[in-house]
């Protein structure tokens, strides 16, 4: 194990690390918002929205992540426009993950007893008020564990950016590798960078879950 690689190429690693963090953060927020919206579509009373939500989820969830990224990377050029690798990769990542998040949130909402909605609606609250004040706060507790898994998957999946030159951790690791030819060592250090992100996230989700369990 040649630890000098880590110190010598620290700046290069860090550049990739920043790319991975930024892409993951953007995709995390994007996929959460998009996923919540799709989940709401899927339980909507409007049939067209339900169909759209289901179609979206089933289509995205059942094709490879790389393909989703390609859609955003190569797709725009078919219409005479273009997206750089980082942007296309991040959007693809957000869209891909949103399908899984939508499914997790839908399941969480479905698990809140029907009587909760009935009590809220019968007191005159609107559908939206019932969702925001009664159903979603209870669903979130059930949704945290699967959501945590999705966020961790998202960070790891961000390595797909490499393939579209998205300037992420793996992309810069390839640069380090082509310089050092110590392939194994180079990528072991990459793992450390990913763990720095995923382990605290995983721990944080567990703490949050426990805190909500304790509250009521």
């Amino acid at each position, binding site marked *: 194990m040649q630890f000098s690689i880590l110190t010598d190429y620290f700046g290069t690693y860090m550049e990739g690390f920043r790319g991975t963090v930024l892409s993951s953060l953007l995709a995390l927020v994007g996929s959460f918002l998009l996923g919540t919206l799709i989940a709401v579509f899927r339980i909507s009373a409007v049939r067209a929205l339900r169909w759209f939500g289901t179609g979206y989820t089933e289509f995205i969830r059942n094709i490879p992540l790389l393909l989703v990224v390609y859609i955003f990377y190569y797709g725009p050029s078919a219409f005479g426009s273009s997206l750089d690798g980082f942007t296309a990769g991040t959007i693809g990542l957000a869209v891909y993950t949103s399908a899984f998040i939508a499914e997790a949130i839908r399941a969480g909402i479905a698990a809140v007893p029907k009587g909760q909605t009935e009590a809220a609606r019968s*007191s*005159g609250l*609107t559908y939206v008020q019932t969702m925001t004040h009664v159903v979603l706060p209870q669903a979130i507790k059930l949704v945290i564990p699967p959501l945590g898994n999705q966020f961790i998957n998202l960070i790891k999946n961000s390595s797909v950016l490499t393939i579209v030159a998205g300037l992420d951790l793996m992309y810069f690791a390839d640069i380090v590798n082509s310089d050092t030819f110590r392939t194994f060592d180079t990528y072991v250090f990459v793992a450390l960078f990913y763990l720095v992100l995923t382990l605290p996230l995983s721990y944080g989700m567990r703490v949050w879950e426990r805190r909500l369990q304790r509250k009521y």
Partner: protein
Amino acid sequence: MIDFQQVDKHYGHFHVLKDINLHVEEGEVVVVVGPSGSGKSTMLRCINRLETITRGQLTVNGVSINDKKTDINKARRDIGMVFQHFNLYPHKKVIDNITLAPVKVLGVSRAEAEKTAMYYLEKVGIAGKAQAYPSQLSGGQQQRVAIARGLAMKPKIMLFDEPTSALDPEMVGEVLDVMRTLAKEGMTMVVVTHEMGFAREVADRVIFMDQGQIVEEAAPAEFFANPREERTRTFLSRVLSH
């Protein structure tokens, strides 16, 4: 105040409510009894459109409840409902369970809503539990909170859907006491229950339902002493003989 005219309801091929005609006056306490699956709860839940009707006319507080143009959220403000399983919001403290609808629906200030909430908690005898979570209360206490939650909207009508059926026997009394007080104060109430003692003592009128139909309705003394219909007699002999 509540007026069912030739109301029918189908669940697919199942005919749940058959030609329901029922009129409830302001200040009246109507108790609905009958075997399980007779449609009592379904009928009750039509009043605030938790269930829709298939045919007929249903008017509550002068509003046609099943009309598409009716603002149902507005109509529901005046109709409080208490459920068999309480349906308190487990993530909210008792006080916040009660203030949610007044603040969000009626637009009253938080301070005023809390004052009202405390008034009704006092009334149902559990003001000391305002800051507790529902899971920290007994079933009887939870149901009394649910009643306070309904009352805090200052409704014109209160609906009770088997309010004591999920309670341990020793807690039934405390809930019925609150309902008895409410009835004495002139609240318009429709109560679906298996508590015959309550029906006999508090009801202005008892309705007996079976197989989706109103079989018999009478003042309680008459209803329990001289039931006219054979089906009513069979039912009463079953529930009163133990």
